[in-house]
């Protein structure tokens, strides 16, 4: 049986061939997914891709756009929400 920490879906199973010819499962972390807009699903630009430890190497302004909902929504969806907010103010 594999050690407990490798039994989760977090880990990726990689079959590697040893010099003796034996094929053995090795375990590695899965790749981090692309950041997407939470409303429409378009891939976001200007967001650091990687684990938290990797993103920590960048400055705060380099990690994601500095506008509200930066790194969460795309510009189109953000503008839509802002327009809705503005129209609610009047009504």
């Amino acid at each position: 049986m594999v050690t407990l920490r490798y039994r989760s879906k977090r880990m990726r199973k990689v079959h590697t061939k040893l010099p003796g010819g034996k094929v053995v499962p090795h375990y590695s972390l899965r790749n981090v997914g692309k950041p997407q807009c939470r409303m429409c699903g378009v891939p976001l630009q200007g967001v650091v891709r990687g684990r938290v430890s990797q993103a920590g190497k960048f400055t705060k302004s380099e990690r994601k756009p500095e506008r509200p909902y930066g790194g969460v929504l795309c510009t189109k969806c953000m503008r839509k929400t802002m327009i809705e907010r503005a129209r609610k103010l009047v009504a």
Partner: protein
Amino acid sequence: MITVGDVAMKIAGRDAGMLCVVVDVIDGNFVMVDGETRRRKCNLKHLEFLGKSAKVKKSDGSEEVLKALKDLGLKVHEVKKGKRKERKVKPSRLRKTKAKSEAVVEKKPANKK
């Protein structure tokens, strides 16, 4: 037509979601804007007008513009300008250093077999 005093919300950029008032009309596409936002030139495409107008002159400063926004009954978020808190000086441990005379005494010649 857009005139001085029209109230709008900024839609795009760092100031998105903030209320502002048109202070000056530059041309058909750009206006000068002030209020919750910084005083800045702004494209009309980046503004959503509320259909209200505030009593504002071209020469008014940003404080007067904010006041005019408040008079309309709009909630205005203000940045409080307070005094900076004085940081407490953390007690730092000084590195223990020996007096020169002691250091000289402690130096011993390496043990020779």
